[in-house]
Structures are given as structure tokens and as C-alpha cells.
């Protein structure tokens, strides 16, 4: 599940320390740095604009966000009004992908399932991002015992595979019989609490390299406090790998939500989730495969879009690849 995160992390580690790189590195003309203070991100943006894959992914992400926010724009059918007389009904003008085994509109269910997937994905990514950012930057900057504590916590969290820990935790929540909101919040909490480690490690290592740079020493010399140095000087230079990790993690959280719902320990009917749809449609796929294919496509495209987006940003910020 977190394969691509580890790939991104390994590839990032082999890349240069930060998007700005070392200003004193050979081959980078100093005049360019002086005339354009933010040239690194401007360069990356110029690079990014040229990539068709980036635009495709961006359009898909925008579309998915729109669907999640306003599902009624895309379908007038109600996913919870199902009539058994429509069981496995063929596609028609009213339901473009036909009906599933319960006589529900397949397309409407997939459209309305988008919201929960994205809520869990963005919520967990936000939580993991904040945790990873705060713990990574403070442990890298202060070092010492705090760094030791954070590193040990990361060891422990990495010892728990995301899916297994998710299963145990979600089993608890569903046993306790919480409502849909409780399950949704629990999904966000567990995925966020388990998913911040890669981000924290990447941030920590880029902070450690940034800490040695002259501009940080200069800022310290001028009397800037720790908070100001971390926020204004170190953070912007550690941002690119962080954004990449979090974008890709968002995709993996969406997939994890679908997997847990698929196994029956995530969201439960009547909540709409691609995972639930896949798990029920799978049982009847000999009869009609469309109810399986539609939510699968939605899920795969969403996860894919976030991963391609993250990958494109990573390549754009990696000067080695230019």
C-alpha cells in the first residue's frame, strides 16, 4: 500500500537536499540566484507546465473534487432509492450504467461514493501532513533527546503495517457501534496516525541538511528565533518533497479506505463507498460486471491521478532529471 511512498522517499533521498539546492553548488550560476530569488520553484513550475501527464492528472483531480462537492450536478438519481424491479437493469437514458443487484443506479452510487473517499483521503492526508511536518521539522531542527523520541515513535509506527493496524483499530470502532460520522472520523484518525512517518522522515532529513546552510547561520546570527528560522527559512526549502509525499499519501489513503470498506470494517451501508460497491458487485460479476467496473474505474482513476500528480511534481523539482 505504501510502496510508492517508499519509492518516492528513496528517490527523494538520492535527489538533491532541497528544491533550492545548494546555492554554492558548482554549475549553478550565481547571477541567476541574485536576479531571481525564487528561481527553483519558478523553474519547477515551468518544467511542470510542459508535462501533459501533469495536466491530465490535474484535470482528473479537479473533476473528482467537483464531483465530491456537488454530486447532484452529475446525476439526478438518488443512490439510496433502489427498486428491486430494476435488478441488474440494462443501461438506459435514466441510468447510463444500468442498475446493480439491489436495483440501485450504478452511476449515481459511484458519484455519491466520491465524497466519502475524498473526505477520508484529504482528512487523513491533512492530519498526516501536520503531524509529519511538525514532528519532522522539530526533531530535525532541535535534535537531541526530542529527535530520539520522535525517531523511536517512527520505528514503532513503521512496525505496524497500515492495513493490519487499520483492521484492528477499525474493528474496535465498528464493534463499539459508532454511527457513520464516527466511522468516518475514525478512518481519518487511524490513517493519519499511521501515515505520517514517511513525510516526517523526509522533512527531518531535509531540515538536517538545510540547518547547515549559510543562510540559516546568517539568520541565527541576525538574532532570529527558532520559530522564525524554522518557519521562514527552513520550511520553504523542505516543502517540495513534503508536497510530493503528501499528494501520493492522499492516493494511498483513498485506496486504504476502499480496502477497509471492502473488507467490511470501514464505512458500512447505507453509506456510499467504492469499496462497499466493489465488494458486493464482485459476488454477482458473472451475471453483470458493470457494477464492478464502474466503481473500480472511479477508484483507480482517483488514486492514479494523485500519484501521477505527486510524481510529476517530484520530477519537476528534481534538477537531476532536467
Amino acid at each position, binding site marked *: *500500500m505504501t510502496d510508492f511512498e517508499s519509492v518516492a522517499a*528513496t528517490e527523494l533521498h538520492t535527489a538533491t537536499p532541497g528544491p533550492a539546492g545548494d546555492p554554492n553548488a558548482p554549475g549553478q550560476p550565481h547571477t541567476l540566484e541574485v536576479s531571481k530569488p525564487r528561481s527553483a520553484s519558478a523553474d519547477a513550475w515551468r518544467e511542470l507546465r510542459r508535462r501533459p501527464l501533469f495536466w491530465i492528472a490535474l484535470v482528473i483531480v479537479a473533476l473528482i473534487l467537483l464531483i465530491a462537492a456537488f454530486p447532484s450536478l452529475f446525476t439526478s438519481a438518488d443512490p439510496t432509492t433502489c427498486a428491486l424491479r430494476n435488478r441488474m437493469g440494462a443501461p438506459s437514458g435514466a441510468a447510463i450504467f444500468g442498475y446493480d443487484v439491489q436495483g440501485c443506479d450504478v452511476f449515481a452510487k459511484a458519484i455519491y461514493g466520491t465524497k466519502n473517499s475524498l473526505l477520508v483521503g484529504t482528512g487523513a492526508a491533512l492530519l498526516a501532513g501536520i503531524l509529519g511536518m511538525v514532528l519532522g521539522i522539530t526533531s530535525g531542527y532541535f535534535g537531541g533527546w526530542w529527535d530520539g523520541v520522535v525517531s523511536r515513535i517512527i520505528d*514503532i509506527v513503521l512496525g505496524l*503495517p497500515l492495513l493490519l493496524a487499520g483492521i484492528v483499530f477499525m474493528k474496535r470502532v465498528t*464493534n463499539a457501534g459508532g454511527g457513520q460520522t464516527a466511522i468516518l472520523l475514525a478512518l481519518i484518525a487511524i490513517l493519519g496516525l499511521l501515515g505520517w512517518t514517511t513525510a516526517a522522515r523526509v522533512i527531518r532529513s531535509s531540515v538536517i541538511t538545510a540547518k547547515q546552510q549559510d543562510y540559516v547561520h546568517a539568520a541565527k546570527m541576525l538574532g532570529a528565533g527558532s520559530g522564525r528560522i524554522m518557519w521562514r527559512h527552513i520550511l520553504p526549502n523542505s516543502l517540495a518533497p513534503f508536497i510530493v509525499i503528501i499528494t501520493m499519501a492522499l492516493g494511498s489513503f483513498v485506496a486504504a479506505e476502499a*480496502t477497509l470498506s471492502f*473488507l467490511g470494517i470501514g464505512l458500512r451501508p447505507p453509506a456510499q463507498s467504492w469499496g462497499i460497491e466493489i465488494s458486493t458487485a464482485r459476488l454477482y460479476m458473472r451475471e453483470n460486471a458493470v457494477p464492478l467496473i464502474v466503481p473500480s474505474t472511479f477508484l483507480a482513476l482517483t488514486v492514479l491521478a494523485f500519484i501521477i500528480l505527486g510524481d510529476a511534481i517530484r520530477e519537476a523539482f528534481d534538477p537531476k532529471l532536467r
Partner: protein
Amino acid sequence: MFRYLVRRFLQMIMVFIATTFIVYSLMYLTGGDPIQALAGEKPVTDLQRAQLTVKYGLDQPFLVRYWNYLTDLLHLDFGTTLTGRSIKDILLDAWPVTMQLALIAILVTIIFGVTAGVIAGIRRGSIFDNATLVLTLIVIGIPSVVLAPLSQYLFTIQWKLFPTTASGNPTWYELLLPGIVLGSLSVATAMRLTRASVSENLRADFVRTARSKGMPGRRVIGIHVLRNSLIPIVTFLGVELGSLMAGAIVTESVFNVPGVGFQLARALKTEDTPLVIGIVSVLVIVFLVANLIVDLLYAVLDPRIRYE
């Protein structure tokens, strides 16, 4: 090296205690009424309740119970399921099947992932390189909840190439498709890792030296580049073997392969909490041990790596 070993072992013990503690406390500290769960719908009299509480040691303080769970775990005693079967027996039945599946997955990863990675790494920037990069990105982006049911539909129902589900005692042929599906998740990662590692080593000084002293290209690639590039791949495959065991849960339940993941999925469906805890604990241990072995292997394989 010795100090590193000691430190790594201590770290593993700490992680082991912490993870089992988290799993245990999540499940039992705040769990509902375990005695009622055991009795199901039936009412429990006060006397029965008192007896069962003593029998299962529920009157003990939490830390004592955790200690008992931990010592049982180390004695390979995983308790019994709600229906009274020994969890150890279930695991002993399921383990060989999962091992078979993981073996197929690893072979698929090596044959496709590593080979493609080597070619892409040598011909960096070629059409093959770009095509496989995009292809692996797509494979990474398709979660197993999508890949497993869809490939089952395509390859067993649409085109009847493989059996749809595995039997109780699955043959290699029945495990082939689930194994490929399971392996395809790590093919992409293995390919990217190999590619990065090969293309990095191609720029190394020792490769330039080998070339400049007139060594044939085949030998440079085969002996000097490959050997050094395979170090991260070997370690990746080791870690992957551990996570494949856990990742098999979706694939195994889709293809009805009676392995560990299948048992876990079934335990979740039948709400068999002791079985869930037992399997998850074992999988966490397997994962930790795999990581430990890989870390030690890493130090052995690459003499440049010296841990203080």
C-alpha cells in the same frame, strides 16, 4: 558491527513490545464485554460471568493480562477462536498456502520488475524506459481491491484462462493468477528501484575504470554494475516478503485462497475477535522479523555500510 547488531536487536524488542501493546490495548482495553461476546445472544448469569472472568483472567489488572498475552505469544500459543478451534492449527494450515502465493509473487517481481528495471536503467531515456515508467506508475496507482476483482473477472470469466477460485488444497496452477496479482503490486516498485540503482551505478567511478581498461560492455554490466545494483533490490524483496503476507488479505479473499489473509478476512466477517488479534499479532511479528533479517543482510551484503 557488533554494536550495530545489539542496537538493532534492542530496537526490534522495543518495537515488538510497543506494537503488541498497541494491538492488545486497542482490542481489549476499550473493547465491549468479552464475556457477552463469548456467549453470543444468550443471557449470562452472574455465576457464569464470575466463573468465566476468573477462567480467562479478566479479573487481573490490565498490565498482567498484557504480560500473559505476550508470554503466550512467545510460546507460540495464540489462544482459541470463538468457536473453540486452536488459532495455531488454523495458522499452520494456512501458512504454507500463503508462502506458496508469496513465492509466486516474488518470482513475478524478480522476472518482470528487476529485468525491466535493468534494461530501463541501462537505456535511460529510451522509449522502453519511458514506457515502463508510465506503465509502472499506472500499476502502482491501481489498488488491489480494484486489481484483484477485475483480473478475476477478465482472466477467469471473460477469458477462461485460469480457475476462478482456488480449491481447499490449491495447486500451483490455481495460485498462479492470485500470485501474479499480488506480485504486480511490487513489480512496479522493484522496477523503479532497480532502474534508479543501475543508472546510478553506471555513472560510478569503478564502471568508468572498468570501461577504460577495455573490459567488454557485457562484463561491465553483468559483473560490476548488476552486482552492486542488486543490493537494494535484495533488501527490498526481503521487506516485501513480509508485507506481502499482510497484503495478501484482499487477494486471498477475492480468489478464495485458503491462506492467512483469507482467514483474517473471514475472521473479520464472522466477528471473531480472538482470531483477528491472533493473526494480526503473528503477521506483525513476521513483518518485524523480515525487517530485521533484511537490515542484517544489508550490512553483510554491502561492506561499505558500517554502522558505527
